[in-house]
């Protein structure tokens, strides 16, 4: 079996749908798999690993039992390898938007229209969904989806427009280079004359500036001007010029991602300070057959550690089995000695 990445928009039926694809969700796939339960995972990121992959891919972790040292990405890669035999299906770059009853189970719908029906739901949403940071410029929200975008879905939207890109990372530089040829005019705005981006992109950008094909402003954005969601200009500000105005029809701020609880807040599960209370026997929420594991849950003594989340996944899987296979008997087995488990793992 292999790991599958499903195209957006399909309809699926499975045993367990997991919201989030961080390390805890990944190991839950393993524990579920040993019990013959199939899983689909949804994550707004375009790849697995959650915080490990997004926040510290290259930093070492020293407290995974039995592994002296592994990086965030290294752990993610190993988990992905470990769960391959169970053929999980991933739905990446999608936000799990809603959760509703469907028969004796549940239906999760994503912002891309994908529907997944499952007997059991596992919320492994960690510190929340990774979403683009929104700069706190007064009134910016009124322009969103019309003149202000935090991602480029359709490039054509920016054709023949006066486009302002804010930020100094790779996304800012990449989109500067991609949109410059089609925009009427392009301005890059960043607070310093230095970038956290590939030197090659920076050089290309500087060449365009030298050729007067775009502008680079070392400044900050102070205010937005326009009406009816349509942006007309920005007030920029820096030491040399003070406040000054530039024309702008489109604004693309690229300041990386931040963790926001997001739609999980509307799932109708009791929350306590943005965390989901669970019992410590099954890690089930106050709603039967909905579980919460990893950083998103809370219980007396909770530690936000990968180690703890792995344990939570193992216990959750036992109860998930009882829901998904009510007529079957749960059998406790070791991977070391059970030939049936070894067959599932493809090692027997």
């Amino acid at each position, binding site marked *: 079996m292999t790991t599958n990445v499903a195209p957006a928009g399909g309809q699926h039926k499975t045993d367990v749908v997991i919201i989030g694809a961080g390390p805890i969700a990944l190991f839950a796939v393993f524990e579920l798999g040993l019990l013959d339960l199939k899983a689909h995972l949804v994550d707004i990121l375009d790849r697995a690993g959650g915080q490990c992959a997004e*926040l510290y891919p290259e*930093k070492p972790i020293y407290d995974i039992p039995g592994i002296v040292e592994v990086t965030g990405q290294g752990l993610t890669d190993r988990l992905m390898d470990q769960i391959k035999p169970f053929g999980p299906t991933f739905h990446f770059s999608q936000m799990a938007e809603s959760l509703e009853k469907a028969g004796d189970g549940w239906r999760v719908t994503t912002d891309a229209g994908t529907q997944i029906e499952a007997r059991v739901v596992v919320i492994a949403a960690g*510190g929340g969904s990774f979403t683009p940071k929104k700069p*706190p410029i007064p009134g910016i*929200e009124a322009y969103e989806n019309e003149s202000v975008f935090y991602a480029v879905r359709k490039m054509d939207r920016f054709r023949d427009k006066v486009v302002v890109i804010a930020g100094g*990372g790779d996304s800012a530089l990449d989109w500067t280079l991609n949109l410059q040829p089609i925009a009427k005019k392009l301005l890059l705005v960043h*607070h310093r004359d230095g*970038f956290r981006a590939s030197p090659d992109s920076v050089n290309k950008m500087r060449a365009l500036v030298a050729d007067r094909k775009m502008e680079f402003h070392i400044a*900050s954005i102070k205010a937005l001007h326009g009406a009816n969601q349509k942006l007309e200009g920005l007030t920029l500000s820096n030491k040399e010029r003070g406040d000054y105005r530039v024309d702008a029809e489109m604004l693309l701020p690229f300041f990386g991602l*931040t963790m926001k609880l997001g739609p999980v807040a509307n799932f109708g599960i009791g929350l306590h300070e943005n965390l989901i209370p669970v019992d410590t026997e099954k890690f089930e929420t106050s709603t039967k057959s909905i579980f919460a594991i990893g950083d998103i849950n809370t219980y007396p003594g909770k530690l936000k550690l990968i180690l703890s989340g792995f344990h939570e996944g193992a216990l959750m899987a036992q109860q998930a089995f009882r829901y998904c296979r009510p007529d079957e008997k749960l059998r406790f087995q070791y991977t070391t000695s059970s030939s049936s488990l070894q067959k599932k793992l493809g090692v027997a």
Partner: protein
Amino acid sequence: MKLIVTDREGQVHTLEGREDWSAMEVIRDANLPLAAECGGACACATCHVYVDDEWLAKLPEQQQQEIEMLDFGVAVQENSRLSCQIKMTDELDGLKVTLAPESL
């Protein structure tokens, strides 16, 4: 040593700093609203503060990593710093910072 923090409502809090802790840790320990999502790994820029002008020059110089991570801060100014990269020391007794606005 003291760390004097102005929150986003303008309220001033005088916190007791601890040798070897970062300013971020002191602020979080006091339950002030600072996301500090990456827990001090200089990988998120959500521990962003503005340093009072009189203290700016007294802080140890910014490392390249911090300068680069600030590219992902919102509402960055000349006096912006990542509080997880400011280590509390006796020289910084009385340091004044203001919590920068967060992502909306």
